[in-house]
């Protein structure tokens, strides 16, 4: 029997847990400050109080998830976290979309939880205890096949929460529907608890059994990267776009973690520590900039009442601070120096290079291809954020609401700039941060760290003897700043005056917002180039007055979501089909039901007699 009542709540406060606690609290702080201004005026006081209680409980549940020392308590906190976030997703109950998004989220997250429970029960069978230490000790006795099964279950379970492809479908529904400060928590932190689960249960407790585990994670990761960013490019709802970018960034984080798993199996301890630290680095970076971007998107949403990018434009003049904060976030997520996203993406590439150099031939090519696909992802992400920032904030307003937008309130600005500040800190302070992260991953892997050398303002990786690689973010920032300053001064002092005049419009009499490039137009080349995957289609509708004169012309372009179309739809159809089939045995006649009961009893008696 399960020893439910004997379980005492014990906390595990090792460096890994501390790291996640820090990440959760950092984003929560910004989100809490922000929520004061954000909820003001949107909801009644009663609703706001309800929201804050849920918010606090949600944070506590996440903290429990990353600190408890017992698989059962872990599951309870995990479920609490899922349910609380469900209530936060449907917080905006007047909106029907929220309810349906909530249901998709609820179903997906419970499928994930089911797999986690299954894997825990299998491990329990061998350990007889839910205590992490006991499970870890027992995991050595689990046969290989069962171990593989547990790995797959854990991967599906946590992968659903993390949003890896093809289990990502709930993200673009649930994250945008929640109030923005909640989206920033969900996208910034909650999906990271799944990464915690993967590190804790697969790497730390289960132990890496075979090489293909790491390779499988790498393949899933790179697919998630590409699928996430391609869908994000097609998306014109600001918050949905950000949600798809979470899929992409989870992929980048998993690239680090998957590489680490490969290195563990190949006994390249130093590299394993390096790769895991890089994964964790990108994790906290993503938490910071994605949290920031969702907060900015919330400000835009509050100011304009819509998330549709095609209705924005020119907001940089109405909301200068929000625009600046968003620019920081956009630069960080596009991996531009000297902000934090750049450091972790550079490090990920470096891990793949050193990895490719250290492993044997077949894997070499695989690692190099992973690296170049990561570069492709980076390029596409930069394009996507040129679109997101450019269409939203630059040029002229495309709608009346965008024209009347006002800057966000003080508490919202504090929340945003708090995180914007950290994108800079985690970029310039890379050496210090990385040193701490290396300690964290060292404690997970219990490996040695000696050959990785660090100095304070620039850090050096020395894997092969004598081959140093350097990256000094402060120096890069300094040189950039000096060049900027000198050129700006020279230009200011020695050149002529600047005159304001209208934009060149080919001699057409007036430039209107309708002349502007739209988000749809911006992403058109990508839509065509990835047509094999996106399967774009058009709908046109002409309203004719006569044969010759078209009165109105409606043009829509859509892309097909192949995951929904080819994976989820058939599954749903099958489920409904079989339900319909089984319904036939329930015609509502009482005689038939009595016959069923009788048949069951007879069958049971026969069974008992046999065994």
């Amino acid at each position, binding site marked *: 029997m399960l020893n439910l009542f004997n379980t005492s709540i014990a906390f595990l406060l090792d460096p890994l847990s501390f790291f996640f606690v820090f990440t959760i609290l950092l984003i929560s702080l910004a989100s809490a400050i922000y929520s004061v201004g954000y909820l003001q005026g949107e909801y009644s006081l009663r609703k706001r109080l309800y929201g804050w209680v849920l918010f606090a409980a949600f944070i506590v549940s996440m903290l429990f998830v990353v600190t408890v020392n017992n698989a059962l308590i872990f599951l309870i906190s995990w479920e609490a976290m899922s349910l609380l976030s469900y209530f936060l997703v449907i917080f905006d109950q007047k909106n029907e979309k929220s309810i349906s998004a909530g249901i998709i989220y609820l179903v997906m997250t419970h499928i994930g939880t089911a797999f986690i429970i299954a894997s825990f029960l299998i491990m329990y069978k061998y350990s007889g205890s839910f205590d992490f230490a006991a499970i870890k000790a027992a995991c050595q006795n689990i046969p290989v096949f069962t171990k593989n099964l547990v790995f797959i279950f854990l991967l599906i379970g946590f992968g659903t929460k993390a949003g890896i492809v093809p289990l990502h479908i709930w993200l673009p529904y649930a994250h945008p529907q929640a109030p923005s400060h909640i989206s920033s928590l969900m996208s910034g932190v909650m999906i990271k608890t799944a990464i915690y689960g993967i590190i804790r249960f697969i790497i730390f407790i289960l132990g890496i059994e075979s090489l293909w585990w790491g390779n499988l994670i790498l393949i899933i990761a790179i697919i998630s990267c590409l699928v996430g960013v391609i869908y994000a490019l097609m998306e014109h709802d600001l918050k949905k776009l950000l949600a798809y970018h979470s899929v992409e960034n989870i992929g980048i984080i998993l690239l680090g973690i998957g590489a680490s798993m490969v290195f563990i199996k190949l006994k390249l301890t130093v590299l394993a520590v390096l790769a895991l630290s890089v994964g964790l680095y990108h994790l906290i970076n993503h938490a910071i900039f994605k949290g920031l971007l969702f907060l900015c998107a919330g400000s835009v949403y509050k100011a304009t009442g819509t998330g549709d990018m095609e209705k924005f434009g020119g907001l940089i003049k109405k909301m200068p601070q929000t625009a600046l904060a968003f620019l920081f976030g956009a630069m960080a997520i596009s991996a531009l120096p000297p902000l934090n996203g750049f450091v972790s993406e550079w490090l990920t590439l470096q891990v793949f*290079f050193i990895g490719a150099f250290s492993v044997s031939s077949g894997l070499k090519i695989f690692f190099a291809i992973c690296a170049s696909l990561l570069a*492709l992802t980076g390029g596409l992400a930069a394009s996507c954020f040129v679109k997101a920032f450019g269409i939203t904030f630059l040029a002229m307003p495309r709608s009346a609401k965008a024209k009347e937008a006002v800057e966000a309130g003080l508490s919202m600005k504090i929340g945003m700039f708090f995180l914007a500040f950290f994108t800079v800190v985690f970029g310039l302070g890379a050496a210090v941060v990385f040193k701490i992260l290396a300690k964290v991953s060292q404690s997970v892997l219990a490996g040695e760290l000696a050959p990785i050398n660090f100095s304070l303002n620039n850090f050096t990786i020395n894997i092969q003897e004598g081959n140093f690689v350097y990256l000094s973010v402060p120096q890069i920032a300094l040189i950039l700043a000096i060049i900027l300053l000198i050129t700006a001064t020279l230009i200011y002092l020695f050149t002529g005056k*600047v005159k304001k005049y209208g934009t060149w419009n080919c001699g057409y009499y007036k430039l209107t917002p309708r002349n502007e490039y739209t988000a749809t137009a911006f992403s058109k080349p990508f839509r065509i180039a990835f047509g094999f995957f996106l399967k774009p289609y058009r709908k046109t509708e002409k309203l004719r007055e006569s044969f010759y004169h078209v009165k109105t012309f409606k043009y829509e372009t859509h892309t097909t979501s192949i995951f929904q179309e080819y994976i989820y739809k058939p599954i749903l159809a099958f489920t409904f089909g079989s339900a319909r089939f089984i319904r036939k045995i329930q015609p509502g006649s009482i005689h038939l039901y009595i016959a069923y009961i009788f048949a069951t009893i007879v069958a049971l008696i026969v069974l008992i007699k046999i065994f």
Partner: protein
Amino acid sequence: MIFIILQIIFLISLAPLVSGIITKIKNNLRLRRGQSVWQPYYNLAKLFSKDEVCSEHSSWVFKITPFIVFASSLLALFLVPAFIAKSPAQYLGDLLLLVFIFSLGRFFLALAGLDTGSSFGGMGSSREMFISSFAEPAIVMAFFAVSFNFGTTNLAATCGPGALKFSSLIAGIALLIVTLAETSRIPIDNQETHLELTMIHEAMALEYSGPSLALIELASYLKQIVFFTLISATVYPVVFCAQITPIQALTGIIIYLAKISFIAVLIAFTEVFLAKMRLFRAVDFLYFSFVLALLALIAATLGA
């Protein structure tokens, strides 16, 4: 240290000349006399002395962009080994850093294209980001292949006793194709026309004038010489790395100039003998460079 500063100053002053030479060769190939090779310098001088017109719809992003684009190109110049490879920049970053530095400039230029509110700018931004997204994997793969020969992505990878390897050669060709895209040259883009529908880079910078335009032009000359230098260092590494004497420096300069002129001639011939591709064919072209880079990598893993 003094050599390094001299090297950077030398490269900055050389950069516009390379464009001038390419234009001259192209014109001569077409049996025209063409403009003087010094024309880019006259253009820059002219632009710097002019007043500037700035769109009334634009914001501060439009104003700071030329400086950021210029700064990022100049920073890249710190990183490449031209004729002396030992540089303080070695402690700044590595080959892979170049990818990120260029994406900084490009990001802002694309934003500036959108900032003025005209469709040309937006069109240019969209296409530029599109092309560069597909160029990036090829660059990274080529850098990997080159670095594989040396075991590090440190800039020292492009310097050393003349390692004329097969893999480096293929990687160099892959980089050459990428260079055509990154410096807006013919099969991908066209620097010569100002017909809005064909241009990519020019469309983004369409609204710039005066000193801002000069900075952007100078930045693209710098970017071009950075790429040329990279290719030259990849295929035929810099010879002198350690403590060098003035004589060695002079020899280094001569070798370097020879390499750069060779690439310039190659680019000019490509531009004259190829037609501009449709935008979506350019993707295939870049896939080709990716495949070449992959081939280089495979060769490098085999030790060739």
